[in-house]
């Protein structure tokens, strides 16, 4: 069965600093990988996705992620964090489970941005 691990429960960075959120997945085949962001009191919004091709994918809000098959990782990065980036971030892997293509989510990383 597929699984996703986000090793960092909580990360704090200063505004303007760079950011990297870690995600490791376990899946036997080529994974479909996603990053979602959840602002306080809101639903999840898709930041970016990887299906195939270029291993560096660009998303919304200036985020990017790099797929590294050898490390089973899909880390999320941003060169300069803004205060509005404070939120919870979820990594997910898509896989065929039962009769449907489903997403399995990590437990999330809470990002705090200091002024």
């Amino acid at each position: 069965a597929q699984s996703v691990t986000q090793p960092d429960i909580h990360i704090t960075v200063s505004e303007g600093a760079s950011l990297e959120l870690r995600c490791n997945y376990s899946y036997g085949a080529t994974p479909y990988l996603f990053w979602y962001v959840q602002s306080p009191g809101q639903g999840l919004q898709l930041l970016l996705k990887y299906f195939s091709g270029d291993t560096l994918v660009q998303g919304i809000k200036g985020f990017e992620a790099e797929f590294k098959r050898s490390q089973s990782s899909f880390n999320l990065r941003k060169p300069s964090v803004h205060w509005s980036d404070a939120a919870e971030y979820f990594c997910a892997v898509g896989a065929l489970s039962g009769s449907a293509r489903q997403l399995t989510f990590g437990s999330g990383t809470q990002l705090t941005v200091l002024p």
Partner: protein
Amino acid sequence: DAGITQSPRYKITETGRQVTLMCHQTWSHSYMFWYRQDLGHGLRLIYYSAAADITDKGEVPDGYVVSRSKTENFPLTLESATRSQTSVYFCASRAGDRGVYEQYFGPGTRLTVT
């Protein structure tokens, strides 16, 4: 408005009561999902539906019932609520095209069972 909506946004109920959470989407997506979000667990799938009148269990289905008589609606019922069902519930949907995985989420319902 187009999109996916959930109601109510907040609900407090007592142990043993029946409660229904509503989910409505306007995209005509074939697939719909219910998740619960608990601290330290991320999102866990409760039930999903591939089309009207087709539903299937997810990771944590016990204590929940779903139905889908119309494509756009996917209600989740807790037949006899327990304190362990205090959680934030998210509904999601996606198109049924081959190779499509990404899901689109509603704003969530925060349920407290006292």
